């Protein structure tokens, strides 16, 4: 029978099949952990007299609570303690952990792929909803809660009911300066913030095939913002070339790592989108599905609660709204391709005097690559801050945050109320749009930067 890529990966990982009275037991090939969602899991392990079953299939990294300022001074003792706890737990159980001194340190969803841990055909979990990022490699990857982290540490397995499948086919040709981030925001607006619940999405079509691994990661990263269990892209030569660049030219995929959906495979739901007409997209509300083409006006039927919070008026235009902070970074858009794009826009220009711009590489490797290309100089000459790797202002628990009332254009993934600091307001956009907004000091379309700047 014809199968989807998801079906094949699922089948290969069933340890105990699903029954009416219990979910399937699924084997996990790679378990990523970070400081925020793992300490209580290690405590539970200890309380139950259990050990870590497969330390070599587990990788730890410090990213959420760590400072990204050049001095690497923790925001407070609690944050420092949380990171030391991660290091202690990993040391005790023989788990590799990337701490602040490790050159490979970075955001969990950036370092997994960079180090070659993330591979096609795998099952990958992490106590973090953006684990969907790793689906870009043709892996089944999703976020789990801390109780499940305990279970995976102890048994390398997870209890799951089989999700449904959703195929999203993206056709057409993207216009210049329209990126995977714009596509992701567009897809989320179409599905709605809960529209993907219970589904694993497979992104297909010529647009996705033409995407680099970085762009595929951006797209899969945001599948959770439509509520989907996971997002994935079938592996192809782009995937294998990326992995060879990380693991050496001799690396070859196993036959099960070359699997894709059969041509006649049936999905539970199918969506087709032509993105040829897509323009840069930006959010105006407090849920990632509240977005618009950047040159549009805020709809007259927009939810009043979100407009009250954002301080926007229905019918008003988005471009021209004054921007206090611009944040380029996160597991959505903190990779080298994203920084190159931001640099291309910033080159020879200045960040507006009233605007603060932070550029935070997703990992140590991204930082070094950017510096080798001279991107750091472009950023600093433009007047932006060039920071150390981490989650930074995506989550505002590490010292990088908005002040109440401040408006940020961010390349991260969540515009929830207060996500970037209590009272802070967030508009999500691509690195190109974010950089254009920094130069203009206001919401600006990157395609018309000369006009708006």
């Amino acid at each position, binding site marked *: 029978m014809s199968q989807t890529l998801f079906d094949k990966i699922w089948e290969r990982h069933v340890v105990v099949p699903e029954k009416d*009275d*219990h979910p399937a037991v699924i084997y996990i090939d790679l378990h990523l952990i970070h400081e925020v*969602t793992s300490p209580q899991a290690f405590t539970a392990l200890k309380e139950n007299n259990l050990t870590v079953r497969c330390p070599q299939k587990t990788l730890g990294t410090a990213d*959420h609570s760590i400072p990204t300022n050049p001095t690497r001074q923790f925001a407070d003792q609690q944050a420092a*303690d949380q990171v030391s706890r991660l290091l202690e737990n990993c040391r005790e159980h023989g788990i590799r952990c990337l701490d602040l001194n490790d050159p490979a340190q970075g955001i969990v969803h950036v370092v997994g792929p960079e180090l070659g841990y993330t591979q096609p055909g795998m099952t990958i979990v992490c*106590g973090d909803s953006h684990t969907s990022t790793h689906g870009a490699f043709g892996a089944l990857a999703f976020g789990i809660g801390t109780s499940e982290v305990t279970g995976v540490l*102890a048994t390398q397995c997870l209890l799951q009911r089989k999700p449904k499948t959703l195929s999203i086919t993206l056709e057409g040709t993207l216009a210049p300066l329209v990126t995977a981030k714009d596509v992701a925001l567009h897809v989320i607006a179409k599905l709605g913030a*809960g529209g993907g619940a219970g589904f694993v999405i497979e992104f297909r079509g010529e647009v996705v095939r033409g995407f680099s691994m970085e762009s595929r990661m951006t797209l899969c990263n945001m599948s959770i913002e439509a509520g989907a269990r996971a997002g994935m892209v079938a592996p192809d030569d782009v995937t294998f070339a990326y992995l060879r660049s990380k693991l050496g030219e001799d690396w070859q995929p196993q036959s099960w790592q070359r699997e894709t959906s059969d041509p006649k495979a049936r999905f539970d739901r199918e969506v087709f989108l032509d993105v040829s007409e897509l323009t840069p997209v930006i959010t105006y509300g407090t849920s990632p599905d509240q977005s618009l083409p950047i040159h549009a006006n805020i709809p007259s039927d927009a939810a009043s609660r979100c407009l009250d919070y954002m301080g926007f008026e229905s019918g008003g235009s988005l471009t021209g709204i004054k921007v206090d902070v611009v944040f380029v970074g996160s597991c959505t858009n903190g990779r080298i391709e994203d920084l190159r794009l931001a640099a291309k826009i910033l080159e020879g220009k200045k960040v507006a005097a009233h605007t603060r711009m932070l550029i935070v590489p997703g990992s140590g490797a991204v930082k070094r690559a950017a510096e080798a290309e001279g991107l750091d100089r472009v950023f600093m000459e433009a007047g932006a801050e060039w920071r150390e790797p981490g989650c930074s202002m995506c989550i505002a628990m590490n010292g990088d945050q908005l002040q109440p009332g401040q408006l940020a254009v961010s390349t991260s993934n969540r515009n929830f109320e207060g996500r970037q600091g*209590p009272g802070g307001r967030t508009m999500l956009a691509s690195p190109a749009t974010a950089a254009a907004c920094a130069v203009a000091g206001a919401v600006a379309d990157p395609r018309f930067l000369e006009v708006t700047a």
Partner: protein
Amino acid sequence: MKPIRMFQGMAAALMRSDVDTDQIIPARFLKVTTKDGLGRHLFSDWRYHADGSPDPEFVLNKNPEATALVVGDNFGCGSSREHAPWALLDYGIRVLIGSGFADIFRSNALRNGLVAINLAIEERDRLAALCPDEISVNVFDQYVRFGDGKSTTFQLEPFARHCLLHGMNSLDFLISHSKAIDFYEEVHS
């Protein structure tokens, strides 16, 4: 986890859609290494004004006795933080009645004994309109009843229901399959 067969309490309604886990428990309170005391920060940015004084308009301040919440669509979207159900439970909320919860949140909630009940939208809205009201929930027979005496049935995922009724931890279930896991590893190594 303690077994839960029956629940009685007061229900209040928080009918915003897409209430995300950053609202339930903001990230700045996640720098902890235990589960304790998170109830203090539940809905912090909605419950308190910036100066720390309680907002009298917020549902939990209006209904401090509430132990159940009727909630809007897609409740618990956003991050996978289990701190969200921990905070709700630590505050004293035992039951959530909604119409479509975010996947990870629902599984986190049930694992901790927070009974997340899915009803059809009309039924959920009918109950929301009765709030604040007395509520009783029967996990064994799977029905919920408000002060008006009308019962509405619901369906929990059978394994989650079994765990709630017996106070069972899914970790024990996984461990009971150790032999199958050994076998899987042998075949796939």
